[in-house]
């Protein structure tokens, strides 16, 4: 079977980095490009970090494009309090040398979807949805050509993380999230309800570290750094692992459960803006627009992650 072609839109971030490594290590996926966005840290840092991760995986052949440096309508909010000042604190990675392509990430998305056969190329978003929202405004014709968007976004039963109501990615650019959710595109949303089940326990990080290859060891060091904030906040034995869940869904949809529901994004409420309003129980007449995942087999997920990262340098 031919590999599934994807573009990854990301704001690394340690968990973004592990998601990139998982995708690059999986023969079922062909990563056609990486686009960066401002989110966990500013754009120059996320782009720098993406270069480091591609080099760590030995995949400097993957085209890397810098996307939007700011959300569509709001001031940028970042999360150095979780990810550290560089966004990729933890391992000591070399200064990257691979180039960033000249073309803006939004234009790369547009041209890639126009060049692809309709449906054959999908998008995975790990950060705020600014780039794809901008692309849909600039070139609405691409909507009919995008296979699917698998996004790390949303929360229902877990409440929010950056505010009591909102998850980080939609909080940073709620207008972009709203635009994408109203686009009519096939969307799979991987929310905090799923990612909070995937706790990076000591045993799981030790298993990665024990693989001994540089990518797996670096992944374990990254997650050991970033989990400190969440462990203190939640009082749990380990931290949630978010972004690799989106890649895992492409590889093993059978280890997830979910439901097709309506998801709207709150834009106006001061207390609640950026919140994903999920009509799980169908108490409204809103038409379902999202495959909203609800649960995951965390053991199978970590087994997959460990097995795949072993394939990298």
């Amino acid at each position, binding site marked *: 079977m031919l590999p599934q072609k994807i573009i990854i839109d990301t704001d690394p971030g340690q968990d973004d980095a592990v998601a990139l490594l998982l995708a690059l290590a999986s023969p079922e996926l062909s990563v056609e490009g990486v686009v960066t966005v401002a989110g966990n840290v500013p754009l120059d840092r996320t782009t720098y970090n993406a270069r480091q991760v591609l080099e760590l995986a030995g995949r400097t052949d993957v085209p890397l494009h810098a996307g939007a440096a700011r959300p569509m309508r709001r001031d940028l909010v970042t999360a150095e309090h979780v990810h550290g000042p560089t966004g990729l604190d933890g391992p000591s990675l070399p200064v990257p040398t691979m180039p960033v392509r000249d073309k803006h990430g939004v234009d790369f998305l547009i041209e890639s979807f126009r060049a692809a056969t309709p449906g054959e190329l999908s998008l995975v978003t790990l950060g705020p949805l600014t780039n794809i929202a901008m692309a849909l405004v600039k070139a609405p014709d691409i909507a009919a050509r995008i296979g699917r968007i698998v996004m790390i976004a949303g929360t229902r039963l*877990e*409440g929010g993380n950056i505010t009591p*109501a909102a998850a980080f990615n939609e909080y940073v650019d709620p207008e972009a999230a709203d635009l994408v959710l109203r686009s009519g595109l096939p969307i799979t949303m991987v929310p905090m309800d799923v990612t909070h089940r995937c706790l990076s326990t000591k045993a799981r990080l030790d298993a990665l570290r024990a693989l001994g290859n540089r990518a797996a060891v670096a992944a374990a060091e990254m997650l050991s750094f970033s989990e400190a904030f969440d462990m203190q906040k939640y009082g749990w034995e380990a931290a949630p692992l978010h972004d690799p869940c989106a890649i895992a869904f492409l590889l093993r949809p059978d280890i997830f459960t979910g439901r097709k529901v309506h998801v709207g994004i709150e834009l*106006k*409420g001061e*207390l609640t803006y950026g*919140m994903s309003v*999920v009509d799980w*129980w169908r*108490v409204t007449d809103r038409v379902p627009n999202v495959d909203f995942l609800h649960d995951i087999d965390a053991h199978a997920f970590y087994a997959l992650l460990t097995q795949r990262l072993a394939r990298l340098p």
Partner: protein
Amino acid sequence: MAERVIILTDPGQDQAAAILMMLGAPEVFEVLGLVATAGNIDLAHTLRNCLKLLELTGCTDIPVFAGCPRPIRRPLVMAEHVHGPTGLDGPDLPEPWMSADPRHGVRFIIETILANPPDTITIVSLSPLTNLAMALIEAPEITGRIRRVVAMAGAYFEVGNITPTAEFNVYVDPEAADIVLRAGLDLTLLPLDVTHKMLSTPQRLGAFAALGNRCGPALAEMLRFSEAFDLRKYGWEGAPLHGPCVPAYMMAPDIFSGRRINVSVETGSELTLGMTAADWWGITERPKNVFYVRDGDPVAYYHLLTHCVGRLP
């Protein structure tokens, strides 16, 4: 000495259970009066239902007052789809012979609090908070004299019931809830997070029916009627039993657990109107204004409720 309470209520079968529980525990609760509220059903029906319940229990010396027939700023939203056209469908209760006290419910709240020593009167709220909020506006001097307010209201981890993000009592009158939450009262909330753990399984309803008195079987019939909607909606083994969480918490706080946190109500946006943004993880600087109950022991809860109802005629 029994706690002297005013009950704000819009029965509603689950509130009937709460009222029966309190009337069956006179050593804990001295019920000074019932203030009927518009909510689950219109005021004329909730008033009549209060009278029916007092006659059912033989507590006909307790006065009933009509409160406001509408929320402070919004048109009334009701829930006949859950509770039936009378709000108390299920058993065949006779039309009441008692009549309501002619004083307005808001006036009764104010006069009772001012006529008694400070910190001796507790407000038990099972309904939208309209009448308490109106009393606080009309007579701000009562604020510091109220012993405590214990209210069934809100949702965080369980999100919402009347909309994807709002619990009914808060949704019906979000401005009233906002006024009460900002008043500086000693306030405890029993939200859906805890009431959704208290499922009225067939075995638990059977225990009411088997009490052998008049009230137990009537309560079982009420709850069998009202649970039909939730059983269909959620597909659970029993329906959540909301109202009695309030008196049960007051009688046996040790079977519940919670945290002191900030809870704020969304009033500025349509999509998330009436949502209680609960800062469970302490990620904002908002002042702690509520003891928010998140969990409880359903076995102990139903045991206590059955015991109290069993002491009635």
